[in-house]
């Protein structure tokens, strides 16, 4: 398991958020990719779509399972990781880097997300 970066925020549904000024980058956590297994398909929103907190914004499929992506933030999608269309395995290999999902222009400051320590305790409880 890769360590969960200290600088990120985490949701109970296993998405991470990196705040960069008035934007945020969102991805799935190492725990999520490990639970899903080999990821074969990622469905992302389009640039310009509006994300709402705790609302579905896409899905991830692995050989054995499919799971909704749940947004940890509210705002407008300004970029999506187009490389995932043909190489979704980046979400397994590098969930906090090349496996990022979307970049969002924040409509509000994110609330209710966990730091790395709280998230690790949350994962331990789910195991």
């Amino acid at each position: 398991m890769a360590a969960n970066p200290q600088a990120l925020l985490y949701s109970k549904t296993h998405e991470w958020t990196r705040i960069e000024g008035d934007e945020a980058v969102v991805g799935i956590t190492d725990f999520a990719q490990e639970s899903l297994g080999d990821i074969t398909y990622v469905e992302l929103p389009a640039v310009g779509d509006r994300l709402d907190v705790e609302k579905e914004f896409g899905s991830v499929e692995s050989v054995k399972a499919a799971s909704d992506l749940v947004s940890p933030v509210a705002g407008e999608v300004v970029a999506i990781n187009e490389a995932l269309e043909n190489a979704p395995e980046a979400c397994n290999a590098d969930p906090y880097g090349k496996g990022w999902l979307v970049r969002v222009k924040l409509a509000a400051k994110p609330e209710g997300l966990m730091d790395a320590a709280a998230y690790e305790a949350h994962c331990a409880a789910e195991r």
Partner: protein
Amino acid sequence: MSELRTPLTAWHEAHGAKMAPFAGWLMPIQYEGILAEHVHTRQHAGLFDICHMGEFRIEGPGADAALSRAVSHNLQTLAPGKCRYGFLLNEQGGVLDDCIIYRFAQDTFMVVVNAACAANDFAVLRERLPQGVALADISEATGKVDLQGPESLDVLESRIGQNMHHLGYFGFCETTWQGVPLLISRTGYTGELGYELYVPAEQTEAFWETLLVDGRVKPVGLGARDTLRLEAGLPLYGQDLDADHTPTEAGMGRMLTSTAAYIGREGAARAQEMLVPLRIEGRRAARHGDVVALPDGTAVGRVTSGSFAPSLGCVIAFAWVPAAHAGATDFTVRAARAALSARRVEIPFYTQGTARKKL
């Protein structure tokens, strides 16, 4: 409920496999990952723990004739040293199980059955065979590992120090490994050149480790076994085959060549639905239970197995469709999150498999 453990379950746990229940057994789903294990089997050699499957030994005067009436397999043309795929049918011709029958001698056989069906199969066979024919469940005493992949022959020969080039597809032989009985069968469930290997349960772990000494071999879990078999167009009992469908409906009518008066023979030719192989472009998977519709939107069937196919880069599936619509070319699969365009194709989906390779 606690699951049954194979002679290798402790090995899998010690080697970090993801474990899950399958047909009442605690089995390895994956080690390093389904995709990597799938590709490794297609290119090199994968080793599978298949100890959960059931083995029965059938012998005694009249076994040949009696077994011919109990199963769909054509035993008339099955020589000693050969094995054959076929079905245990109910009276209506529905499939109770698919199984491989090995002939050792005129009246001596081994039947290899699915784990989930084993108890019922045994009861059905016992009822169909006369008392003078012995039926023994040797599952617990028998370890089974499958070595599959284009390099499996080289690996097997070098690890046991014997030439196995003489074994043709669906041929088998009995030999020994370090003084232990070893049955080598050139069969499998991946579409690749490969062997199903039977050893006494207590020697299974030592034999497994002996094969893994060769760097070309990796352990492979049931996750990749499922994607490999689906690409090869091989049905899985309980998903693509069941007691409500006949071998003909599953596209295996041509295998029904036995002239014996076997149970279910008449009904086996019945075809109300057909198992249709489908190809879906893209990566979004059709999955078991998804509705299959005609292009005009009429729901006509359902997906039995569906997956992203790692060796093809697209999605493949089997689906039950009424025989009247089975000739259609285009279908729509209503997957959980989208409607997918599907095209009927021929099996095997993956055509580069080495299973039938001439040695």
